[in-house]
């Protein structure tokens, strides 16, 4: 192997290690939903290359409102689906679209885009 080949190969493996760490091992910080008007727990979720925040904390039996706002032209995130609650919403660009749910059991409930590429979860305690 030439020096160039060794350098390129090491750079390649370093890039792979970075991909594994950055996309698979990195864990986002959960955000607790805040009490809003009428005692509804509320959290604003920005849709831009993913969900921000991607982990939302909620409480059993308490109404939770997720205000989704798509801040990108890409159509990847134009739909949001909450399969456990049978809910789907179309997200027009730059418009806040709230989805209200009442999680009746503790656990983790996913929300994803229509094609399952963007992923977030609601952690219900």
């Amino acid at each position, binding site marked *: 192997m030439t020096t160039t080949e060794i350098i390129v190969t090491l750079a390649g493996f370093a890039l792979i290690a970075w991909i594994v760490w950055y996309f698979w091992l990195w864990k986002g910080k959960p955000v607790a939903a805040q009490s809003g008007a009428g005692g509804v727990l509320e959290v604003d979720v920005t849709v831009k290359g993913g969900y921000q925040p991607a982990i939302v904390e909620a409480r059993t039996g308490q109404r939770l409102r997720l205000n989704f706002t798509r801040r990108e032209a890409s159509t990847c995130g134009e739909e949001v689906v909450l399969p456990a609650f049978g809910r789907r919403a179309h997200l027009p*660009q730059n418009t806040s679209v709230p989805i209200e749910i009442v999680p009746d059991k503790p656990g983790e409930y996913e929300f994803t885009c229509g*094609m399952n590429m963007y992923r977030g979860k609601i952690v219900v305690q």
Partner: protein
Amino acid sequence: MRTGAMHGTQAIDPICGMTVDTRSAAGVIERDGQMYYFCSTGCKAKFDAEPQGVAEKQSQSGCCSTKAAEAVAPPQTGCCGGGAGTAVQLNAHGAAEQPLHQIGGAGRRTNPVQQGAAHGAHIHTTAGADRSEQVGGRIKEATAEEAQEKAYRALMRKFSFAAVVSLPLVLLMFAEFIPAWREALMPYHRLIGVISAVISLPVLLWSGGQFFVGAWNGLRNHNTNMDTLVALGTGAAWVYSTIVVIAPEVFPAGTAGMYFEVAAIVIALILLGQALEIRAKSRSSAAIRKLLELQAKTARVIRNGLEVDIPIAEVIVGDTVLVRPGEKIPVDGVIIEGESAVDEAVVTGESVPVDKAAGDTVIGASINKTGAFTFRATRVGKDTALARIVEMVEQAQNSKPPIGRLVDSISSYFVPAVMIAAILTFLAWFNFGPQPVLNYAVVTMVTVLVIACPCALGLATPISLMVGVGKAAEHGVLIRNGEALETASRLTTIVLDKTGTITKGKPELTDVLPFGDFTEETVLRFAAIADKRSEHPLAEAIVNGARKRGLEVDEPEQFNAIPGHGVEARVDGRRAAVGNRKLMQREGVALDAFEQAAMRLADEGKTPMFVAVDGRPAGIIGVADTIKEDSITVVRALQRMGIEVVMMTGDNERTAKAIARQVGIDRVLADVPPEEKARQVEKLQVEGRPGNERGGRRARLVGMVGDGINDAPALAQADVGFAIGTGTDVAIEAADVTLVGGSLRGVVTAIEVSRATLRNIKQNLFGAFIYNTLGIPVAAGVFFPLFSVLLSPIIAGAAMAASSVTVVTNANRLRSFEPQVTGKEN
């Protein structure tokens, strides 16, 4: 139109009444399926705090307080005067219709109906919630449709630009393959490179800008998606080619290849694929839209003694509604006067019109065929059968069948895995490939990036589920969720309740066999009088049979119903007992005299009812339930599908077996009291069948078909509970599948559509898995050592664009599903 009203992209803020552009609204609230748009966060917060109150205040405060109310109030009756009204009615498609007061000239009364309509619309602004919710549903549809159409047009514009610009680049690429042209252009190689770089740049930045922005946004969020792959692939090709143009000397001899056309054409093809996918997806969700379009737009109600036409959203519970022949019934209700045949196919899937008379229920959106009638509205807005069907179908479409869970876990790892595969491909070619290694390494890496298609995987399950569940609804079969659909497709056993499911559930008197000195008439008279106060269907059959034979059925002097046995009563001062064998044993009546006759009746499928007077056998009465027209066809169809059919009944074994023989059922569970049904289903579930054991899992998957009320525990116990509804009871809680049409054929349709949908999902998943698992190694060049051929990145890009379109198109094939067993066969 008030709260939530919308005209094109305009909506009315329910708090301040301002017209709001839905695309730039400061806030939107969806509440119970209704969308509200707000001009400011303040309005949104106010609404949020007291939505109900706001709705009421609006309606009570009259039309001047908000522009939203103005919209409802026509000028001639409202307090705002003419001219200012911005009334907008939405049609079924969410498009704006001409306001009532503008028909025939603004502010001019044209005829009493219009006048009344205006009046009705005004005085009933408090009909509030139901109306706006229904309208809200349409707005949601319209918004999604408009957005889809807009996205399609934008993609096609970008595609057209990319395609036109790519054309000279493609010609230059072909020139490379023609020796004479290649030599002629050789001196201008670098100039051509500069021109290609400049031409392809706007394709990347404008047409393909969304991929780069999407990829960047994803990267910042530790997320990857299809944009990441497209951006990396085309970006790498363009950057590499540009470096070749600027500094060809940094590359080893022969490695300075240019791939501008690859970047531009791949972007053009993927844009085209996305546009086609949007079109195909809008067809997939057509079922829901079709259901909504079935609604009538207006209703003719009688208010203050006048017939007035009003939008159906204005109809309130208790309204008297008039329907003429050929018209659609606007909401659910009960007929007050008149009779007609009503085509309920829109809701029940049953093609034969149903005769209706006073006291019968009618379903909104069904078509009145022959006579005119009036009915009292009982369910409006989101409570109508149609609205509940739409809601149920939407929920099912958005659920996930277990088969999709594997895909979920795969797709979260997919894109980074492809990126890693691309790097490994680059390294393999760079270290072990033939010369020029850098060219091969770059081309194969780009090809791997652009061939992988995570969207095909992600779309495979939900798109088929959407079409399948919608298709089932068209045939009057409501499937609760993806899990029920998947289980229904794998059922091995179906349990049919006898009474009301296989039979009509309306038994009739067939035989009267007297003993000793009793005559037919005296036996029947004793039995009918004794049974008169009983509510049991068999007792009713005896009473009705006696009346039909001209007997007068008096009241019994004493009456006592013994559940599970029969009745005891005092008739003409004598003690009469009418019931089953257990009652006779309890009464100490010798059964010997009964035996032969009872067996004969049972063998004929009739239920023998024993009659004893003063403790002596008086006679036997035979009562039989008629088998439904389609029972035999359905049982045969289920058996052809490889499903074992079991009949369950509380009736005696002999009668049950006789009925079972008539319909072709081999296995009968007889003498099962109502409270035992669930346990019998459980016993069937754990019952092993040789060759069908699956590693500790239940050997049988049992579906139970019942009426949803009496059979609720058994339906809940079954792996799939099928409830036979009556049209208006659309969402039966205990049921996984509701057969709205009330016909047993729905069971076959539900299983057929479930199997077809699951087959479709499997085809999609198989196609997407195979495509990616074969496509990526081929793109990486595994065939190069054998055949010295490499996949062109352009073909890889085309394949990627085609794969998503193929998945959606395959799912759309389900739209042509037709049930095998239809009403026409009978």
